[in-house]
């Protein structure tokens, strides 16, 4: 009997929202929808990264060459630090899921214990990311070098320590024969980048000139990343030749042939888009971790005050847990596509 209602349904039953088709509460459902939209944002960012990398003509930086340092231990540990960060975030995701599980048993003490562990894990991750950013921004001791033929090379090796500068020509601040030992590395890199080093003599900010006392660099390797007139990308220059070529550029007095560290305009690891994507993607993720920690702290305060226990369920913990797991989920993808491949 088309067009004929067989049973009268009053509008209250129909639109009163009594039954959820998904058997979940409104809050949890909306958290899921929010996460889908947020996942699309991150998906868009990572796909944009893939697009840029795919149409880029030169060679793109390799994660294990760029990220190979550990705090206090120096270089030569490819990806170990990021792997530790990944492990840290996985562990804090586990403590979160244990908090949710404790909530399902109405175990208030358990929820508090595991949420505190999660928050500590979150702070550790944020600290690790701060170190990673600082390391990325300050860069290596050698930087990236533009060789005589116009090719660009990433430099690996052992940097000979700078002992001091001996002033040979007075400026506004420094007098002749004065020995400068403080902050020499910083001044050296700045002068090299600006082309203020010439025949082992550095011109300082105040206009004075000084002779550089520096140990020799050793075990150097120049990995050519962008082809020039002589060297094609993929070429590796080693040994005495590499040392000499690098020294020549340092002492050439030309500006901007050596780039240290990274900012939004340029970086020593590869094309500038690489640095921009690094800052934006890990930064956006880090911001999610930060807000996740804050939300966890707020919910923990509610747990401690017994708000959810009185309510009869710990669904708020479950909802903030969903957000926290999502942050871990995103990092799994960032780890693969930014660092591994």
């Amino acid at each position, binding site marked *: 009997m088309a067009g004929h209602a067989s049973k009268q349904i009053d509008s209250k039953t129909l639109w009163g929202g009594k039954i959820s088709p998904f058997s979940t509460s409104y809050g949890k459902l909306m958290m899921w929808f929010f996460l889908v939209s947020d996942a699309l944002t991150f998906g868009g960012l990572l796909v944009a990264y893939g697009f840029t990398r795919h149409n880029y003509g030169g060679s793109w930086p390799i994660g294990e060459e760029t990220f190979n340092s550990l705090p206090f231990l120096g270089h030569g540990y490819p990806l170990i630090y990021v*792997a530790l960060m990944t492990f840290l975030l996985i562990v804090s995701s586990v403590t979160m899921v244990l908090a949710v599980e*404790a909530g*399902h048993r109405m175990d208030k003490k358990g929820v508090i214990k595991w949420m505190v562990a999660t928050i500590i894990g979150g702070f550790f991750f944020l600290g690790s990311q701060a170190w990673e950013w600082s390391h990325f921004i300050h860069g290596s001791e050698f930087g990236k070098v533009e060789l005589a033929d116009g090719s660009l090379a990433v430099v690996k090796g052992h940097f000979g320590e700078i002992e001091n500068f001996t002033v040979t020509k007075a400026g506004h601040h420094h007098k002749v024969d004065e020995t400068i030992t403080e902050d020499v590395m910083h001044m050296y890199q700045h002068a090299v980048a600006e082309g203020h080093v010439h025949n082992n003599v550095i011109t300082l900010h105040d206009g004075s000139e000084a002779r550089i006392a520096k140990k020799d660099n050793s075990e150097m390797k120049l990995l050519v990343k962008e082809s020039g007139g002589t060297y094609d990308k993929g070429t590796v220059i080693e040994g005495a030749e590499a040392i000499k070529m690098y020294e020549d550029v340092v002492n050439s007095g030309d500006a901007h042939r050596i780039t240290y560290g990274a900012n939004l305009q340029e970086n020593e690891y590869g094309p500038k888009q690489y640095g921009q994507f690094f800052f934006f993607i890990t930064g956006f993720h880090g911001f999610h971790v930060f807000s996740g920690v804050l939300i966890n702290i707020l919910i923990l305060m509610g747990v401690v005050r017994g708000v959810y226990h009185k309510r009869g369920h710990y669904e708020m913990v479950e909802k903030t847990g969903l957000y926290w797991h999502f942050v871990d989920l995103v990092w799994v993808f960032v780890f693969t596509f930014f660092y591994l491949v």
Partner: protein
Amino acid sequence: MERDDIIEYSLDGHHSEEAGVKIRKKIWFVTALLTAITAVEVILGMLIKQDSGAWPFVKWGFIVLTIVKAAYIVLVFMHLGEERKGLKYVILIPYFIFMLYLIFILLWEGTSVGETLATYAS
């Protein structure tokens, strides 16, 4: 202050002590698995360089392992595996359709843009 005219779905998640033991066992298993996968990825990355012949396989291996990790996080840690079928697919299907399309179209376009730049820009 419970209202009997509203179904309280928030209480569905509750389980007993015995069930909790089982659930925790599963959580620790997934933890060990995710850690092991991450360790394997790092070791493979160290052993096989990007210029070696085996790299394409390793690269695809990384991508598969990532999706395995993501699946465990979403289905176990986020409990999506235990939700209603309807909810599961409302979350997963639109996401996969959009992402697969986006990946396909941008890699396609990326190749084309790259070729154009190689031909005309230099």
